């Protein structure tokens, strides 16, 4: 049916609006999405400023034990209580955020970099390169993640960075597939052919035309990915394959508190709620970003 919106001809009197601007406007209009994004940002900032918080707000060190004050419920001076070794929960949550969020963002950065490079090349060049790259991706996707994790944690002592690398090594395949699909779709559009027609080299076509049009998909994947990685990290901690104590992470705090669930429920509740809120915010924000970029709304 011929929608009347198609007759929007004539001069635009508004100032020039790029696609990014329009998407940003749409995102801003989504209140809940913005709130979720702000929450993520706040958590990230607090985690970054962990030493400051420790010094000025909580006055505790995350690994310092106060054995006489163990199992304290939330109150003063331990705002969120203490664990079995008398360590302040709030401070540990903040420092744990550093680790957990750090792993999440780093993993996303690694898997997106590798995955999008492979996806771009495979999608743009096609042919044998596509076949080879995608078979490699298939191999990685077929490896049971748990097996890889166990192997890796035997070989290395997992710290935040190696953990990020390990999780990324499992996840980049999905990103590659996603990017390749998007590239195949964008490649069909005439402006890519037009770029070749005017003499652009492959590098220019890929970076100037293909990548900016594929970016929205990456941004959405990144937003949703943060939440996914947090859950994976928590699961790994639970299995003992993740961050080792005494370094706090949200996941291992949760694991640690498992034995004390009935005794000191708050030790489970606080890390649990933190993880829950963060993952929820990541999902909401990711969906909001996807809606903001939706080409149908253009």
């Amino acid at each position, binding site marked *: *049916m*011929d*929608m*009347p*919106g*198609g*007759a*929007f*001809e*004539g001069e635009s009197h508004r100032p020039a609006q790029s696609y990014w601007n329009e998407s940003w406007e749409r995102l801003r209009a989504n209140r809940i999405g913005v709130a979720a994004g702000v929450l993520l940002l706040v958590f990230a900032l607090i985690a970054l400023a962990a030493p400051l918080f420790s010094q000025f707000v909580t006055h505790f060190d995350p690994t310092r034990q106060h054995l006489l004050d163990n199992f304290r419920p939330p109150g003063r001076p331990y705002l969120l209580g203490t664990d079995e070794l008398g360590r302040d929960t709030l401070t540990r949550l903040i420092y744990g955020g550093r680790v957990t969020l750090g792993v999440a963002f780093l993993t996303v950065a690694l898997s997106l970099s590798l995955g999008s490079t492979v996806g771009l090349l495979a999608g743009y060049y096609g042919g044998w390169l596509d076949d080879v790259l995608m078979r490699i991706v298939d191999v990685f996707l077929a490896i049971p993640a748990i097996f890889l994790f166990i192997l890796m944690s035997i070989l290395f002592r997992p710290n935040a960075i190696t953990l990020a690398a390990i999780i990324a090594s499992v996840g980049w395949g999905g990103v590659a597939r996603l990017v390749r699909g998007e590239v195949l779709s964008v490649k069909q559009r005439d402006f890519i052919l037009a770029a070749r027609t005017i003499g652009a080299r492959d590098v220019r076509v890929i970076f100037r035309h293909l990548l900016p049009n594929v970016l929205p998909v990456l941004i959405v994947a990144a937003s949703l990915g943060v939440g996914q990685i947090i859950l994976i990290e928590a699961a790994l901690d639970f299995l003992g394959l993740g961050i080792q104590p005494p370094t706090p992470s949200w996941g291992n705090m949760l694991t640690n508190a498992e034995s004390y669930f009935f005794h000191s429920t708050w030790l489970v509740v606080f890390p649990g709620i933190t993880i829950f809120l963060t993952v929820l915010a990541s999902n909401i924000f990711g969906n909001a970003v996807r809606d903001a970029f939706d080409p149908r709304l253009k």
Partner: protein
Amino acid sequence: MAAPLLDVQDLRTVFATKEGVVKAVDGVSFHLDAGETLGIVGESGCGKSVTAMSIMRLQRPGRVTGGKVLFKGRDLIQASEQEMREIRGKEISMIFQDPMTSFNPVFRTGWQVAEPLVLHKGLNRMKAMAEAVGLLGRVGIPAPAARARDYPHQFSGGMRQRAMIAMGLTTAPSVLIADEPTTALDVTIQAQILDLLRHVNKEFGTATILITHNLGVVAGMCERVMVMYAGKVVESGPTTDVFAHPKHPYTWSLLRSIPRLDDELHEPLRAIEGLPPSLVELPGGCAFHPRCSFMVDRCTKDIPSLNPVGETQLAACWVTQSGTELAHG
């Protein structure tokens, strides 16, 4: 004179969009007599498709905000959804530009043609299929019994369009609305389909509304024609008269701007300057005035009403209504 089969009076349909309210159909009136072929012609955004959808009450997400659509004396706008379901596909059929999306890809074509017979005429499956096969043959599909067992994607564009026409005719409707039925087809296939539509109109006596942007198609197919611009009817009348002496500057300019196969001399085309208006920010007065070479002051202020100009035509133009002839703009 008998009452018209379909009488549309002052139909109004609007769409709510981010930029504002769009008056897609803004006071459209016309009639269709039994057995005749009426062409509705105009460019994208003029409202011709929305008019047809509104008649069928399929205009959502738009809303009909006014007017009447009298079909055999009954106002379809006031009819209930149940009543409309009785009419759609049975008394008023519609065929579309893209036959691929009108067919369900998971069912065989023959069954899709037969389905209206089961639904509306209460025939049993076998009888309905037999009639469907017969119809497929009558619309010119070779080996219809075999082809009825094929799925839509196995048909070529032209054959699918024929099958869609068959589907539209199963219940011998009084009105067939064809919305750009040949736009997506190659020109030699288009000729076949138009030939078929002409044949259908003669043999079945079905009144046809042909919606298109192609003036050549209208010239060959329609007894009467109605020209739309920005949601309104700007001109209507017998096709021969409208083409010979158009009474609205838009029709006049459009006819002069199209390259014709039988053009003799090569001269630059007399293009209509400017762009079609934004339906959200319509110019004051006559919507065509910014592009009109005959414009006078009144055109910027008052919206012209559709009135008789000449013996057989109606035109919504102050200039021609006041007696001025359109020549050499």
